[in-house]
């Protein structure tokens, strides 16, 4: 009998693990999900609400794919894990045995104990069920006269964009003095602030939520701003202050937990034959400057690829390469390669260039002593991953990178190029500095 590998979670990490196990072996594979029957792209949920896509389009594989590749899908909620008997208990009290268990259970939206955070009309945006809730809570601007979004990160700005697509007035509460400036340098963060306002979003910087006020039916009817005590009427409150691993069902399982499921570089938990990948996995120490928990699409995929190798007799450590990521802030695309921090760390300098139209900019992080290129943030200009990955590996200098920037340009043909402007700005800065 082939080994039975059970994967909890049908997101990118779990599905990648399953696909690669199938490529490498004939093991029996089961994927369990309480959320949806099939794998879909979580990152595309916003586009369903906005009418760019239907749910069907967010599925990367057609429904026949799973049968064809002998990957069994089970729709169920796992209540607990009994590792002594290698068994899962489902919410309906049925069970399933496994030989190896992969936890790919993802995250859930953070709630920080705000009064009223569990009222009707208060929600995060993470799961398919959250999308269904939003469709119910905010189908249009008559039902939802105003929405307040709490938390200035990537999901917050996506939610604002979604609601604006239906012309629903949005107030966006951001704790920081400038949007996402724990991550972005000031020049970039400021540009995004202005872009948010250009989209007619009521951006409130340096503003916290004190409480959410209920109406007589237990629905949110207003929020109170902590700093001013201002009461802001609204029908929907979006809680988008980050996510954390979805591990409550594992509290008494004996699996070592921190904020997430503790794993070593082999993605093994403390219990034999139980592994964790994706958003829910927490490394004992961050790898190469990465955070111990990486809630990023591609890291989930990479962990899945790595773990599949291990499970199929070719033990591999999870060893991500140079950091990269991307996002989109309304109309402005953002990519990052290598490390750029909101403030230069000791011994680092930032070079910042911004286009006069206020929708394109880059920030380059350099080691001041050696001139070595450490990282790049680019907004409104696309860059080639392969080229930056190579430059980082070759430990190029920033001088070299700026000089050769055109090689890395990934904008569509006929787009205006800004390498000369950037080079000139870089040179004049070098002279004055």
């Amino acid at each position, binding site marked *: 009998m082939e080994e039975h590998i059970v994967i909890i979670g049908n997101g990118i990490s779990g599905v990648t693990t399953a696909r690669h196990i199938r490529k490498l072996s004939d093991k029996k594979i089961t994927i369990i999900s309480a959320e949806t029957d099939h794998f879909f792209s979580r990152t595309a949920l916003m586009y369903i609400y906005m*009418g*760019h896509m239907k749910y069907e389009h967010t599925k*990367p594989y057609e429904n026949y794919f799973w049968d064809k590749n002998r990957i069994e899908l089970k729709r169920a909620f796992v209540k607990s894990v009994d590792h002594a008997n290698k068994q899962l208990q489902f919410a309906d009290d049925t069970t399933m045995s496994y030989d190896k268990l992969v936890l790919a259970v993802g995250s859930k939206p953070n709630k920080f104990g705000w009064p009223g955070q569990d009222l009707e009309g208060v929600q995060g945006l993470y799961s398919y069920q959250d999308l269904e809730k939003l469709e119910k809570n905010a189908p249009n*601007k008559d039902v939802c006269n105003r929405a307040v979004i709490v938390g200035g990160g990537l999901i917050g700005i996506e939610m604002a964009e979604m609601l604006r697509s239906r012309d629903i007035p949005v107030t966006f509460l951001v704790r920081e003095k400038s949007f996402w400036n724990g991550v972005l340098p000031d020049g970039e963060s400021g540009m995004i602030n202005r872009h948010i306002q250009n989209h007619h979003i009521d951006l409130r910087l340096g503003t916290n939520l004190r409480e959410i006020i209920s109406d007589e039916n237990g629905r949110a009817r207003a929020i109170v701003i902590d700093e001013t005590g201002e009461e802001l009427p609204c029908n929907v409150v979006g809680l988008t202050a980050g996510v954390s691993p979805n591990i409550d069902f594992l509290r008494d399982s004996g699996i070592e937990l921190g904020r997430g499921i503790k794993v070593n570089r082999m993605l093994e938990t403390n219990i034999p034959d139980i592994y964790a990948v994706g958003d829910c996995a927490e490394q004992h120490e961050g790898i190469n400057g990465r955070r111990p928990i990486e809630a990023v699409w591609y890291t989930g995929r990479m962990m899945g*690829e790595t773990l599949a190798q291990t499970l199929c007799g070719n033990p591999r450590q999870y060893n991500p390469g140079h950091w990269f990521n991307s996002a989109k802030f309304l*109309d402005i695309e953002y*990519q990052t390669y290598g490390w750029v921090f909101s403030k230069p760390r000791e011994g680092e300098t930032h070079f910042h260039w911004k286009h006069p139209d206020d929708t394109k900019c880059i920030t380059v992080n350099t080691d001041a002593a050696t001139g070595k290129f450490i990282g790049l943030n680019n907004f409104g200009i696309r860059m080639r991953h392969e080229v930056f990955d190579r430059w980082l590996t070759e430990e190029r200098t920033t001088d070299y990178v700026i000089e050769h920037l055109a090689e890395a340009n990934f904008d569509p043909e006929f787009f205006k190029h800004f390498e000369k402007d950037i080079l000139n700005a870089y040179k004049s800065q070098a002279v004055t500095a």
Partner: protein
Amino acid sequence: MAIERNMSLTGQPPVSINTTQKIGVLIGMAGLFILVLATLGVDLGSAALWLTISLTAITAGVIIFAKGAYANKLPGIKNDGVWFKSMSSRGVLGWLAGIALTGFYVILYFYAGVLGLGQGVDGANTGLIALFDPLSYFLKGSAASEWFVYGTLYTIAILAFGVKFMWKYKHNRYEQLRTISVMFFQTAFAFVIPELMARLNSDTFSLPYNDLKLMWPLNYYAFDQWRVDQFINAQNIGLFFLILGILTIFVISPFLTYKYGKRWYCSWVCGCGGLAETAGDPYRHLSSKKMSAWKLERWMINAVLVFSVVMTTAVISTFLGYDSTKYWFTKNTFLLSAGVFLVVMFALVAYFKRDQLKSDAFKGAVIALIITLGAFVAMSFLRFHEIQINAAYFSFGLNTNTYGLDGAMRSFYGFGIGSIFSGVVGTGFYPILGNRVWCRMGCPMAGILGIQQRLFSKFRITTNGGQCISCGNCSTHCEMGIDVRSYAQKGENIVRSSCVGCGVCSAVCPRGVLKLENDSLEGRINPTDVLLGNDVDLMDYVNNKKIS
């Protein structure tokens, strides 16, 4: 699904249209209404005046609508609500538009009399076609035909909706330049120049209506005897156009496709493509992305291509056969050289591109070659025009004429492929099947260019390392039904014969993952199992060997 049902019921943004858009609809519909009145035979008075009013209103209506939709918005992707709007999601409005368009094509192709063609005194036009007489006299000095009416409306559609498309993509110069290009080629090459050239015709000199960019096999009548004769009879200028036409097929087009991919034609020059990219743009997401649709596409488009080659060869070999003194070629030299050409091409591809030909593609190519060569052999031994076929057998008795076999094939192709497939289905079904059904499933030109693009071209869509998040915007908005995401999420470049290079996948990608480019043939097709971002060892390991 609850989510989708709820949304379609709201008359709220993004489904609703604003005041400017309503004014645009009103003005445009008024312009169309004038055409309807003319069709119904209402006497409007001055045709020149009312035609001007009508065409101006239609154009202005579309442009005002576009202004309302895009002028006050920040530059960016404008797909809000395309799956909610009745018009663009196969709702009632979409079906009505589809039925109206289909009806128009049926009337145009088969019942031009309804439009007033030659219905008046002494064969003068009445109704809609008479409305276009002044413009036709102005351009080419003769009365309008149904094709002149169609050509005018077609050009207006590309121009007006082209402006709309450029407004929608105001942030994207690739889309804008491409649209200017199709607007130019439609207006100049397909409309104004051929009509003006018709002025040169006299009793002693005449050229066939010649849209220079419309090549064989999209132009399936390119080598009909009457056309070839007209070219030859028109002395040097005619010969020039005939030779230019042949050069375009065998030299210019393959060269441009090698350099830039088939997009140089399909989304920058072609009239069918031009309409699809402009008036058809709101329907691009309706194309099927299923694997089954792709399988159907591959059989269908190549079957049409084989049929068009066989049909054209039959037509040419027939007139070479019974009138051999007039042409350089005899029937059998022609058939032999065509056969040798195809066999040599096939052998070269089978040898030099053997790594890129999957077994099913190879099998399909062998079958196509055998059928084609078999038909050539039959042509050389039989006299096709002497095999009489009564059309009543396959036209439900509508047509009781008798044709030679070559003429029957030619008529069947003209009816089945030229009229029904490319017109009635291809354009009439935009709102149901998407805007590129014809280009994807039926166009033999796209078939040839596609084979060239897949095997001999520098063009590809490059995937940007590991940045893809599998969101699906690229696949959803691909008008050719290519599952772009299935490549992008694997870090593979997209090299597909059907890709027309419209650039919309790259435009709608929220993470900057896709780029259309022409680069070296080396590494153009790059199957990878593990994406950039993992440590280098693992990538080497997975890509080089598999665990048994």
